[in-house]
């Protein structure tokens, strides 16, 4: 009970400050940053939205850290909203009182390579089995995958193990097979894609959204014959996909509600789409 008290007190503190905070997924962070900045600039102060609200400047902070950090920040009550770009496990849900999630859209992990890599010309599609061999480090050179490819080292790029993407990829593609340790670990999706754009021999699981933002600079491959397209992702044919979520605990207060409504509004969905993801609506 004491803890409850503490929690509500905590909430009050946040309310008094009237600053709202997001923490978590680096995939979602740019979307939310963009949205909240637009929101804050559009309304300036809360009372412009509704005269009953205080005449205080709208302040919203966004920090990254990965999906795990997002869940964690809600469990600990460190921020108002958690950004998560993977399914939240039941174990985690159990730790959050009054768990609530808002789905913004869906992202897919596309298997992406550098345009300088001939693979997309040589092979129409890559199989899950081949993916496992590549990412587990069994294939070391491109010509082991296909003899028409050059004898050059495969450069694996992955997210760090705290990232949501890594969990999704492990579960949906690798299964029990371990991802090789000889990988470049990128601290965010942006960094991962930047690496693939730079390195001719790189391959990694790039976020669908980020790939769309970098059209032409990076090539997504078909997996088991399925192309990562909006339709295939919605229909579930393209399997390596993940939800983009905002999570909260307990009852959300008035300000939080206004913000969530804005994010899930049509305007919000437009931004989600513009960022290359598949919006929830």
């Amino acid at each position, binding site marked *: 009970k004491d803890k409850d008290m503490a929690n509500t007190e905590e909430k009050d503190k946040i309310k008094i400050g009237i600053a709202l905070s997001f923490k978590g997924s680096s995939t979602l962070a740019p979307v939310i940053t963009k949205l909240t900045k637009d929101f804050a600039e559009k309304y300036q102060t809360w009372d412009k939205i509704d005269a009953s609200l205080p005449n205080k400047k709208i302040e919203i*902070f966004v920090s990254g850290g990965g999906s795990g950090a997002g869940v964690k920040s809600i469990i600990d009550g460190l921020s108002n909203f958690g950004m998560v770009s993977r399914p939240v496990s039941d174990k985690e849900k159990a730790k959050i009182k009054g768990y609530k999630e808002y789905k913004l859209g869906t992202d897919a992990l596309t298997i992406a390579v550098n345009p300088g890599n001939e693979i997309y010309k040589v092979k129409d599609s890559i199989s899950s089995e081949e993916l496992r061999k590549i990412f587990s480090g069994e294939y070391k050179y491109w010509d082991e995958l296909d003899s028409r490819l050059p004898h050059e080292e495969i450069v694996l790029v992955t997210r760090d193990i705290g990232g949501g993407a890594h969990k999704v990829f492990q579960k949906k593609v690798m299964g029990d097979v371990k991802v090789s340790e000889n990988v470049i670990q990128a601290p965010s*999706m942006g960094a991962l894609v930047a690496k693939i754009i730079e390195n001719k021999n790189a391959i990694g699981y790039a976020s669908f959204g980020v790939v769309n933002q970098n059209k032409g600079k990076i090539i997504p491959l078909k997996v088991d014959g399925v192309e990562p397209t909006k339709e295939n992702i919605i229909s579930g044919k393209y399997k390596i996909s993940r939800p983009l979520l905002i999570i909260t605990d307990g009852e959300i207060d008035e300000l939080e509600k206004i913000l969530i409504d804005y994010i899930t509004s049509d305007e919000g969905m437009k931004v989600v789409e513009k960022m290359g993801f598949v919006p929830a609506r």
Partner: protein
Amino acid sequence: MSSKKHLLIKIWTVMSGLLFLTVVIYIFGFIIIKGINSISYRFIIEKPDGFPLGTEGGIFPAIVGSICFTLVAVIFALITAFATSVYIVFYEKNEKVKSFIRFIIGTIAGIPSIVLGLFGYSFLIVYLNLEISILTGGIVLGIMIFPFIEVRFEKSFLEVNRGLIEASYSMGVNKFYTIFNMVLPICYRDMLSAISMAGNLAMGATAPILFTGAVIYAPVPKSLFSPAMALPMHLYILISEGISLKNAYGTALVLLMILLIMNGLPVIFTMWKGED
């Protein structure tokens, strides 16, 4: 007979010097040349903008944020380091206590900044349940630069001719008066340069505020209790996420310019005071 004798040493010496100069010019030249085009009045005074954030617009919130972080850090470290160094040099007589304090300070000086960041995150943010803010980030930075300042202050105090201090005492003047009327006027130049160098360190550090105070985006901070952007972190994100190389160059150049200004401050101050 000896002109050829030490040829190797001569070559090595000259090569090292030239190599170093080359690197210096390369680094500064690289960033200045590439960054000068990104810098404009608007780059300095605008918020980051564009899509993803940072591709357009400026870095004003990050500049203000960095300055706030640095100020908090310097004030925190200055108070504690001044007190500690004065205490060790002028008040504490027990050698064991002195070496214990020095040992602790040495150990902290040896802790990598990322581990301090880790401490700040776990203790301040998680255990004490403080929100990440300029204050928390600044304190972690302050802890990082505390040993740096303390060691330099102490050295500077110890370098004051012992005879002067004894002469002062032997006129029946107490320690406080001696410290403020003689020791500080002698040491202030060293102290200033220590502070400005420490400020530099704090300004450029990313690891300690990564989890304790800096965020990807925040408007210009209104109070010490809100989080803020910081230049090095902004630069890191611009680079690692491949958001905008152009703005990254600009940000790096701004960081270098601040460095130059902060290094110049003590020099200007002493010139203004009209001493050598």
